[in-house]
């Protein structure tokens, strides 16, 4: 007794044992048969599904498009550039398919960077070809924002999930934007104008900011 001196050598001997003991206690307290709530399970499935379709690893945002739809948009088919189009929406249990038809002559919408982004956001990634442009933004706290503009092509389709918690229509200069909000605060917005479709995916964004982004784009 009275002989223990807390030195580096003593700590190098004892701390690995402490490390092991802590891990074993954690493992002992793990309930391997825990059943998560249905809500938690569905949110995790939604997150996993979305992460399969992220555009950018840096962004790590919620992007509901299929890669097949994006690949179709990447085809440079001059003859299919149009101004107006019709959208057919097919809704399933956990997803919605938007398909585009009757696409007319080349329109007036050009590709261009959004004219408005919320204060504090800076562009961190940008990619574009003649059919799709994607802009990824981040604010100082790492909150992400993804904006994409896609030219509508005949027969093109995109897929959205339908596991949102709230849906609303926002009137922007006479055209309705679809706003989908999720329990975790994230939001997905969809807008059609001219010969393009516009989408916003954000970890958090107000209706006012969504309106201004679409309006000034």
């Amino acid at each position, binding site marked *: 007794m009275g002989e223990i001196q807390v030195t580096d050598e003593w*700590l190098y001997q*004892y701390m*690995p*044992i402490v490390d*092991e003991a*802590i891990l074993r206690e954690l493992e*002992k307290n793990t309930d391997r048969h825990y059943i998560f709530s249905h809500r938690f399970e569905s949110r995790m499935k939604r997150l996993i599904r979305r992460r399969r379709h992220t555009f950018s690893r840096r962004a790590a945002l919620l992007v509901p498009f299929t890669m097949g739809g994006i690949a179709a948009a990447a085809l440079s088919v001059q003859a299919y550039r149009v101004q107006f189009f019709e959208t057919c929406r097919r809704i399933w249990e956990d997803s919605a398919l938007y398909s585009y038809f009757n696409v007319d002559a080349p329109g007036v919408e050009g590709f261009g960077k959004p004219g408005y982004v919320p204060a504090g956001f800076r562009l961190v990634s940008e990619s574009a070809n003649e059919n799709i442009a994607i802009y990824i933004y981040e604010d100082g706290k790492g909150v992400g924002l993804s904006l994409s503009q896609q030219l509508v092509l005949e027969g093109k389709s995109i897929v959205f999930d339908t596991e949102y918690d709230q849906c609303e229509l926002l009137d922007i200069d006479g055209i309705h934007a679809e706003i989908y909000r999720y329990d975790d605060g994230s939001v997905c917005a969809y807008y059609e104008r001219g010969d393009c479709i516009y989408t916003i995916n954000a970890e958090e964004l107000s209706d006012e900011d969504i309106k201004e982004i679409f309006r000034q784009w």
Partner: protein
Amino acid sequence: MRKEIYIDELGGENVPLTYMETDLDNAVLDILKNLPVKYRDIFLLKYSSRMENDEIARLCHIQEGTVRQRIARGKVLIQNAIKNLEEA
């Protein structure tokens, strides 16, 4: 030479709580396990994972001086707790 004994029966209901040969050893182990988290984490990183102070500072998003300070204060805490144990 003191011998450490690990009783490895994961998944069983009766996993023993003791990890050392003597009661004193186990009491010392409990002192280390129950250090305040901000000291314990640094001690684990330094003395179990064998990280350098600058690595610990970067990992924990603190200054290197803070790492050294917490190590010094942690040692005092442990020494005082062992002293109380020995006097009890």
